[in-house]
């Protein structure tokens, strides 16, 4: 089975902190994605990557950056966390179109 893991299930940070969310997949997938999930808004794509060191902006990239130095790892970075970035963050990977998701990180920014 495909396994996508995220470094933390719950995270609490303060406004202005730099935050790193890590995602690792074990199925050699080329494509990886970061979403945020908010009630009533569904999943919104922040960034995605189709190869090592490659990245593409999604629909809401502002305030975020990403890093993909190795194929299995895709990191989401909040350069200076703000309260409106409090959300559930989901990572996914795919190769054939079906996306496999991690369990999510619930981030609270105080």
């Amino acid at each position, binding site marked *: 089975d495909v396994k*996508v893991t995220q470094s933390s299930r719950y995270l609490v940070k303060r406004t202005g902190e730099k935050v790193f969310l890590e995602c690792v997949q074990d199925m050699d997938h*080329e*494509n990886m*994605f970061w*979403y945020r999930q908010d009630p*009533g*808004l*569904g*999943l919104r*794509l922040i960034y*995605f990557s*189709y190869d090592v060191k490659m990245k593409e902006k*999604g629909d809401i990239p502002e305030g975020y950056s990403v890093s993909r130095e190795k194929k299995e790892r895709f990191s989401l970075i909040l350069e200076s966390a703000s309260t409106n970035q409090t959300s559930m963050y*989901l990572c*996914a990977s*795919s*190769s*054939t*179109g*079906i*996306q*496999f*998701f*991690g*369990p*999510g990180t619930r981030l609270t920014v105080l």
Partner: protein
Amino acid sequence: AQSVAQPEDQVNVAEGNPLTVKCTYSVSGNPYLFWYVQYPNRGLQFLLKYITGDNLVKGSYGFEAEFNKSQTSFHLKKPSALVSDSALYFCAVRDARYSSASKIIFGSGTRLSIRP
């Protein structure tokens, strides 16, 4: 532009009754369509997909979905609901012209509640 609409925020069904969760989509080319389910405090799990071929697609846990091109719909169905089906369901679409590396668009989600 691609878009997905799930017109119902919540669907309530009695256990044993059939259920339908609605989804309509808009893409310029042919659609690839997906349903995902999210159980409480867990990530999304893939349920089923439509790529091409038979309009009725069967997936996990007894779910199926019917692709209707003329109505641009892809409704999720199950003949007999179980309490354990209670979860949040997401419909998603991708334009078939683009590679699997491109993004898919998710709907806003429908919360399915099955009462005993």
